[in-house]
């Protein structure tokens, strides 16, 4: 099975670069965006299979990006990352069509499990 193409979107550059590197080490095809707008333009040029999306971002927020994805590219699976330690954002995201959510700091094995699950699941 081909490793999925993943777009990581987070404004914390240090975090998102490191996470990208770790996922690449595990054979994933990773792209990175640091805010909602650039994420949207990247998706337009080369749509990924999965987007891992931070909820709290300056400018276009995670939930707004999620809404746009779901309206424009409904095939893309979205996994949300929340930093507020609250399930509320996660639940709200899932209501809007996200596949699942994780609370920061994340466990990489947990993330990979969810990525794999989302590929298997029909979008």
């Amino acid at each position, binding site marked *: 099975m081909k490793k999925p193409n993943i777009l990581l979107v987070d404004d*914390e550059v240090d975090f998102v670069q490191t996470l990208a590197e770790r996922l690449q080490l595990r054979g994933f095809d990773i792209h990175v965006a640091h805010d909602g707008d650039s994420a949207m333009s990247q998706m337009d040029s080369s749509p990924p299979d999965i987007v891992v999306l931070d909820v709290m971002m300056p400018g276009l927020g995670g939930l707004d990006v999620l809404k746009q994805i779901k309206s424009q590219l409904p095939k893309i699976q979205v996994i949300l990352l929340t930093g507020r*330690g*609250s*399930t509320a954002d996660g639940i709200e995201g899932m209501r809007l069509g996200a596949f699942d959510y994780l609370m*920061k700091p994340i466990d990489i094995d947990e993330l990979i499990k969810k990525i794999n699950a989302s590929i298997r699941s029909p979008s």
Partner: protein
Amino acid sequence: MTAQSKWLRYFKLNFFNLGDEKDSEDRYRLLHRNMILFMILVTIVPLVLMALVNYHQYRTSLKAEIINPMRVLSSKTKHSFELFVEEKLSTVRFITSAYSIEELANKDKLNKIFRVLKKEFPGFVDLGLIDYKGIQVSYAGPYELLGKNYSDQSWYHEVIVRGVYISDVFMGYRKFPHIAIAVQLGNDVSGSCILRATIDTHQFDNLIAAMELDAESDAFLINDKGVFQTHSKFYGKVLDNCPFSPPLGNYGNYIAEEKDPNGREIISVYTHFDKMGYSLVLIKPKSVILKTWFTLKSEMFFIFIISTVLIILTIFKITSFLINKTRDADERRELAFRELEHSQKLSSIGRLAAGVAHEINNPLAIINEKAGLMKDLIELTSEFKNREKFLGLTNSIQKSVERCKTITHRLLGFARRMEVQFEVLNVNDVVKEVLGFLEKEYVYRGIDIRLELDENLPQISSDLGQLQQVFLNILSNAIAAVADNGNVTIKTWDQDPETIGVSIKDNGTGMSEETIKHIFEPFFTTKKGYGTGLGLAITYGIIQKLGGKIKVESKLGEGSIFHVYLPKKAPLKSSE
């Protein structure tokens, strides 16, 4: 500011506005005392004034009512006396007009007239004719008074001037009290004579006896010189000097309150005769007069005492009732203030904690990923020097991150705005479920869990997960607090139409008051080393969110009891 309002202000300040610096128990005691004093002042003082006024009025009117009959009796008796004397005078006058001087000078004739007189008018002692020189020329009576010369006596001159004379009582030759009546006959001085009759004053005693006085009272006649004209029961015999001195002149009626020589308080009524220089004196001791008054007075006094006692009792009852009410209200208000303060404090601490936790979460995520990447790289490089050591280090970093994450997540959970999922549930079931999680521990330690669950507890609308969290926190604390083989009692009941109650009681170590104060604050823990100090803070937050209340009572060494009150219906808004 007027003097009055100044005074009023002073009064208020001192009476009702009590300084805050005083100990509160003292304050209530002072307020209590002042209220009692004030109420007694405004009730008893008018009562006393009224009683005094009544006392005086009653006394005055009662006295008037007693004195009046005395006055009437005196007047009546005076009239009797006057009538008596007048009658005797008329009789003598009649003789002077009916007979000539010659007839009266005739001894036989005079004797005959005297016999008739004595028969018809008792009291006459003798009858005599005295010529203008003052020599008794004719006499009828029991004594040998013929030829006696009266010319040097004062009454003789008076009768010459006035034509009529009535003497004071005297003993004279006859040696018993009597009065003399003398009337002039004839017009020209050289030819005129005087008819003189003496009358036994025994008749006076009869008139006084007719007054029917009681044993304590006395009545007698005195002349203007203050000499007794009749016997007095207490104060002397005829012709003794009277110890009382009536006012001078013809005064009609005079009433005096005085002391008699024997020291008795008396009321005396002096009645002066119109035509003679006599006064009738009627004396009654006050003790007799005021006997009725004393009875009335003691009744009034009795009523006064009873009403005073009743008033004071009522005042004491009312004031202690009011003070207790005030104290209760004050205490409730203070408690409400404390609770408000407490919840505000908790919510601001919560907000602060959430802010800090959120800020820490991001760098924590970075540390986690960096350490993760290091680990990945070490694992991928087979020939890495100190491989095992580095793997251990990164693992330890990740474990620490995990610990921090637990804390930040719980911190956030304490204050976060979380959607509460309301569902209809039975609190008894929730309690049993939670006990299931803890079973291993309490069974192992031999702790006796006693369930007193209300079988008919109504179902409530609440969040199952959150309630589990609440009971788990409280129960694990209880289980931690008791010694092995201790006991924990869980009780549920239907509190009122809106709420149900759950209490969790343990016989463990208990808490000090200082601990109770801080028990719901985040990071406050007594479990040194292994507690986060968030359990009860989260519990508090959840119960607030569910619209309930939590209270705790505890005593060091005796155990603690947590009361949780939950609304039966979901609160309208479930925000923080």
